[in-house]
């Protein structure tokens, strides 16, 4: 980014307001700054940047693994050291695409099953959350009526909903999805409502002068203006739903990373649990980054006025 700013490719913007003084405006174009030596000369610099960003986490990781190895090295240690995790659980590390009977599946399929549940529950939460958030942001009455209820409900821990949803749905699968839904929806509602309430009066005036109807206002003004807020809510929501899925799956069973962990515990396969935790962490990290990236792509330009 910064490189692009150093070489002003087009001096055109500056010349417009200065149009009557044409000779002066042209001076700006006398700045062709050696564009040829670009990529090759920057290679060492790129390598250094890469090293600067990759080395510290790698060193930290190595140190942590070493400490762990030392702490758990005695044969009586309750938890296995990293080296034993590697040997004991080599089978599930090496073959993530393994397909067996029932819940005996490779890590990839376990994670995929969990991701599917999260995808359904989270999508529903995103749609319903944005819709309710718009309602709360637009209407004083909805705000006064619903906000206190939402503020109470959002403090209920995700798993507290599970027995209730099991009773209501009579089945594990929809119950897990419902738990994801109810966990992820609150930050989406609250942030969307805040975004809609904070739409600048100027944009509303533009919409009124143009006589935009409700749909046009929603699509052309409200959603783009509130998008940064909405994506903040969506990002918090996806993190929460990934937190909830593991706990929910432990209780409902079936294929899924949560039940895999629970099953490993029951079989005293502590190494498998550790491998699963690493998977859960990495997937959660990528989910968060995915939503952040989507937000950046979609809200491009909204932050600057």
């Amino acid at each position, binding site marked *: 980014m910064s490189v692009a700013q150093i070489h002003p490719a087009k001096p055109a*913007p500056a010349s417009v307001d200065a*149009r009557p003084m044409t000779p002066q405006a042209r001076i700006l174009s006398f700045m062709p700054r050696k564009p040829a030596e670009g990529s090759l000369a920057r290679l060492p610099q790129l390598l250094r940047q890469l090293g600067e960003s990759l080395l510290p986490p790698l060193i930290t990781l190595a140190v942590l693994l070493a400490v762990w190895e030392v702490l758990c090295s005695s044969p009586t240690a309750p938890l296995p050291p990293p080296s034993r995790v590697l040997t004991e659980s080599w089978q599930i590390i090496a073959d993530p695409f393994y397909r067996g009977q029932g819940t005996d599946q490779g890590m990839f399929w376990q994670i995929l099953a969990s991701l599917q549940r999260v995808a359904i529950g989270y999508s529903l939460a995103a749609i319903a959350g944005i819709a309710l958030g718009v309602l709360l942001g637009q209407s004083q009455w909805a705000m006064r009526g619903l906000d206190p209820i939402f503020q109470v409900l959002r403090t209920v821990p995700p798993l507290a909903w599970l027995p209730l949803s099991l009773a209501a749905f009579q089945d594990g699968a929809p119950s897990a999805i419902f738990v994801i839904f109810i966990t992820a929806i609150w930050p989406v509602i609250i942030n969307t409502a805040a975004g809609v309430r904070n739409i600048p009066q100027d944009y509303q005036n533009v919409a009124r*002068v143009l006589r935009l109807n409700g749909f046009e206002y929603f699509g052309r003004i409200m959603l783009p*203006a509130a998008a940064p807020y909405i994506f903040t809510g969506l990002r918090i929501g996806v993190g929460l739903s990934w937190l909830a899925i593991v706990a929910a799956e432990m209780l409902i069973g079936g294929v899924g990373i949560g039940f895999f962990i629970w099953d490993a515990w029951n079989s005293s396969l502590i190494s498998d649990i550790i491998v699963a935790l690493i998977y859960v962490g990495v997937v959660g990290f990528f989910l968060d980054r995915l939503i952040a990236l989507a937000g950046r792509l979609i809200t491009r330009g909204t932050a600057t*006025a």
Partner: protein
Amino acid sequence: MAQHYLTLELVDKSFQRGGTKTEVLTQVSLGVAKGEFISIIGHSGCGKSTLLNIIAGLTPATSGVVFLEGKTVDAPGPDRAVVFQNHSLLPWLTVYENVALAVGKVFRRTKSRAEQHDWILHNLDLVQMGHARDKRPGEISGGMKQRVGIARALSMEPKVLLLDEPFGALDALTRAHLQDAVMEIHARLGNTMIMITHDVDEAVLLSDRIVMMTNGPAARIGEVLDVPIVRPRNRIELAGDRTYLKCREAVLKFLYERHRFVEAAE
């Protein structure tokens, strides 16, 4: 009064907050001819922006009526396009799309796709912004944003163009260029324009008549000054012009002798 193009009749505006009522405007009456350029000048807080918002329909008057071509104004609409003080371009749309939003809405039924496209480019060219059509507002200067704001307002083919301190946030040089651009557009298209300003030179240079507001609260029209200078006007030639200086003096006297601004007048 009814024969005017735009008529304000005894417009009052007061705001009710808690138990206290604040009078902003009282008994504002004004007739504007078609093609006329009117400036409304006054100290800050005199309710001139409120007056513009009432004409735009963005704020309802407490009492009194605004007529445009004999019809009552009671809601905002593209026939009274507004150029907002801080441009109010939508930052997620490009320059072209910002104007396209207005054109698409106003001419949905009357212009084909291709005609709309040509009309958008025509209006951008009118303010010399055709070259920046694919840029977003964040990527262009304040003066350019305001040009696009003017293009958007002009593209609606308004009966009255309302300008709310359009150049207030710009530096002096940029402001001069934009004033020239507005004068040129006014000469070319003959729009009826009403501009809020607190700049005496700007008012005299651009206007056919200057409406001078007394200080708020309960501001009213103090005087209306005719500016009998022939068009096209040139700021350099006018600098020593007798009529120009006299008009300028009249406005200054009104603002700084008879209605001197007192801070915290309440």
